[in-house]
């Protein structure tokens, strides 16, 4: 299976751009956006299959951004990145449609495993239910 296109949404520019370079080294087509206000338009233009979303964005709640991505109708996988290891965050992110939650600082091998797993699960669902919408309804 070809590697998915990954979009990183994180206003910590050094972190996002370095992580993006590391994913490119691992064969992913990866890019990063640093401003929350550009996130939805980048998803619409770039059609990433996996989005890595930081929860601590400036000016907007990451959880609201996650809901906005899900509401936009895209069927990309969203993996949440957060500095807070909190059960409440895990639960809320799961309910809002995140495929997984990873705690910063991130282990790159774990991230790659997580991206591949989430992408292949999403791909399988798409294969079995081609008319399925992003919110899970038919």
């Amino acid at each position, binding site marked *: 299976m070809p590697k998915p296109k990954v979009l990183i949404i994180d206003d*910590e520019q*050094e*972190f996002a751009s*370095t992580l993006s*370079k590391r994913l490119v080294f691992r064969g992913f087509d990866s890019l990063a956006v640093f401003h929350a206000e550009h996130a939805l338009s980048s998803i619409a233009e770039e059609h990433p299959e996996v989005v890595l979303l930081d929860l601590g964005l400036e000016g907007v709640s990451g959880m609201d951004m996650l809901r906005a991505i899900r509401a936009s109708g895209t069927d990309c996988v969203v993996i949440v990145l957060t500095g807070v290891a909190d059960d409440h965050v895990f639960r809320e992110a799961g309910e809002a449609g995140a495929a997984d939650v990873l705690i*910063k*600082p*991130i282990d790159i091998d774990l991230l790659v495993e997580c991206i591949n797993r989430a992408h292949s699960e999403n791909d399988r669902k798409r294969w079995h239910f081609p008319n399925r919408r992003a919110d899970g309804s038919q």
Partner: protein
Amino acid sequence: MTENAGIFLTGGPMEANNDRLLCAAKVSFVGMILESFSHELKNHLSVIRESNGLMHDIMGVGKMDKEHVGQCREAMRSVDRQIDKSVSLISFFDDFSRGMKFAGEPCGINEAIDILLLLLHRRMSQRKVTIEKSFSNKVRTIPCNPIDLQFVVFCCIEEFMRMLGQGDSIIVKTMSSEEEVTITIMAKSHSTRPVEGGGIFPTLPLQRIVEDMGATLSRHPGHPEIELRIRRQT
């Protein structure tokens, strides 16, 4: 006997309840500062880990070209920057902790507020609210517990933060006269909306701390402005 153990031994049930509220509010305040500190530190460590990882990735390729060398240099500079930022953050936190540890010593008003504002930087920037400082250099030390002062200023800032948004700012001013030091906290907003229920902490504990400081807290009706006056002789 520590301060926290002592407050449960004073007065009747009503006062004991107020003491518990006060203690809980202070612990909550320190918790918020700790959370903000650890979050910011984790961000610096995350960049260090990724920069270090990128250098490993590049070296793993084997023969490095010019672009790889440039990327390695940039990654090393990034590690340096993040270490510098971490060291500054830890220094501010050290100063904050020292204020709690030596609570009985004279307090530098400007310094105590400055440390608080630096530790709140992330909290403010997440809301895209900026902070403006205007500290008088005539404000010297005063016999006042720094953690109490920081708690009161924090409560005032948080009260305004709830009605501010992107592009708005909070102004913190200090002034000094022979009798008192005045700290003014003002909100400057494009579209200030009223806030229901006041600040994040119950009013009673806040009022109690202000009284213990020998200070008064006043709000300007119709203006998003709070003034804290601390008498020099307490």
